[in-house]
């Protein structure tokens, strides 16, 4: 029975790739939704390239979020950095609650149109889940294990790298996964400031009142999010599966 989800995932991946590589083959499927006389399939650019650019933007944004959020999480769980916890938490939460659209609007005058404002918005938006999970992961390391690590003669750094981070890794990866999935959706907004991405397809549909375009952009984005979520989950199991942490 465990095979069925795998088959579904592979099918979803197959459909997504088929659509991105040769979208015109799906013309018949989307024809009923297209406005009269308009093309049923997005024709103002290569949809496969847009998807790739979309994915790349999200990955770069997430990488930046991960580096900063994990570093911050480590800092505030050290004795010396504990006093920064409330401040860091406030900043990171602000990044999450400040609407990405507003970030874009504010960033464009500073860095111009294109991918840059989008990356800033994604970076801010992705911090919170990774930061919070890092803090919880590091804080919930069993006290006896930490005491043993110090008692064995590990330096603070050795303890962090060889004990605390590996034990917190499942939670950190979960934060990264959450952040990735949220940002796949959020990145569509980037197209309003001329970043390359699947948002372009959706916006083109809205402007020309062509539901087929909107649906194509939306479905491609959604499938990407689902597949990425599962992909990272599988990665997590590979990394953390060898040792059950309890």
């Amino acid at each position, binding site marked *: 029975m465990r095979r069925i989800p795998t088959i579904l995932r592979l099918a979803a991946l197959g459909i997504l790739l088929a659509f991105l590589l040769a979208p015109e083959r799906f013309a018949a499927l989307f024809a009923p939704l297209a406005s009269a006389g308009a093309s049923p399939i997005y024709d103002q650019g290569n949809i496969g390239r847009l998807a790739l650019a979309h994915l790349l933007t999200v990955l770069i944004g997430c990488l930046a979020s991960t580096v900063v959020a994990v570093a911050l999480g480590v800092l505030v769980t050290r004795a010396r950095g504990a006093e920064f916890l409330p401040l860091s938490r406030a900043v990171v939460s602000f990044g999450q609650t400040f609407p990405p659209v507003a970030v874009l609007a504010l960033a464009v005058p500073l860095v111009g149109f294109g991918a840059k404002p989008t990356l800033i918005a994604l970076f801010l938006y992705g911090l919170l889940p990774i930061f919070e999970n890092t803090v919880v992961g590091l804080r919930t390391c069993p006290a006896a294990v930490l*005491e043993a690590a110090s008692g064995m003669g590990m330096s603070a750094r050795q303890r962090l790298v060889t004990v605390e981070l590996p034990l917190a890794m499942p939670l950190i990866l979960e934060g990264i996964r959450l952040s990735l999935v949220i940002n796949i959706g959020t990145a569509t907004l980037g197209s309003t400031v001329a970043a390359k991405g699947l948002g372009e397809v959706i916006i083109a549909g809205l402007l020309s009142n062509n539901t087929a375009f909107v649906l194509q952009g939306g479905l491609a984005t959604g499938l990407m999010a689902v597949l990425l979520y599962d992909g990272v989950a599988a990665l997590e199991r590979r990394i953390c599966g060898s040792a059950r942490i309890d």
Partner: protein
Amino acid sequence: MIVIESLTKRYGSATVVDAVSMTIERNSITVIVGTSGSGKSTLLRMINRLIEPTSGRVIIDGRDTESEPAHLLRRRIGYVIQGHGLFPHRTVAENVATVPRLLGWEPDRIRVRVDELLRTLQLDPAMYADKYPYQLSGGQQQRVGVARALAAEPAVLLMDEPFGALDPIIREKAQDDLLEIQRKFGTTMVVVTHDIDEAFRLGDRVAVMSEGRLLQYDRPEVLVMHPADPLVARMTGSAERAMRLLSLTTAGEALADTSANTATSNNSAGAAEMAADGPIIRASASLREALSELLWRGSESGTVVDDDDKPCGRLTVAAILARGRPR
């Protein structure tokens, strides 16, 4: 040898350990016993500087522990804690190899040492080396914790309630194993416990602590016969101090003493007595156990046998009772 010189730890206005001085002999087991909050764990942790003392110093084999960075000091001192604290993401072998790795031993040397230790602690390396801690029973986890602490051949082993998480039957076995290990490696051990029975069972010397102060530090029989403080008397249990005294001597030791005193007179009669009835008493059993056995069987005397089941003498109830009184 560990010399502790007026070691004190204060947190704000609270004094947790109050000017404790004691000398711990090499190759011995010293047990620090006390109620919770007596400062016994704090005292132990100041030896390997997991807690930095407010004042006073610790000298191990002539060297002040302050003379090197704390984490380097700790690599030379074994440390076992309650609930073992094994690294859950590492295998048994990796756990045991922790300190040798920190010390940069060659992989081959580490492998040999890990195998040797697992065997010493009755864990077949082929079966357990690659297991994760959660796959082991409580007793096995505890033994891996001891193996890990001993891995780099430390001269000193500190143990904080090492058997606290074990059920009574496994605990007794674990205590025996520890005594065995102490004899085998000659490690100087300092054990913290709240269990006075455990203290008497393990300790060559027992230190009683209360409210941060060291009340008495001496051989167990001295604690029973000449308690220096009412609390020590209460802890050693005035109601059963005779039994406790008996538990400190083995049948073999008692026999050696008696035959030394009355060697000539008993020699001829001894052979005849050997054949007499009565239960078999192991030389390694305590007099308390021997007395209990004799009472149960309703016998006046029993035959003491050594490890090879060879009879080595007779022990009478009267002889045992004589040892339950202060001499």
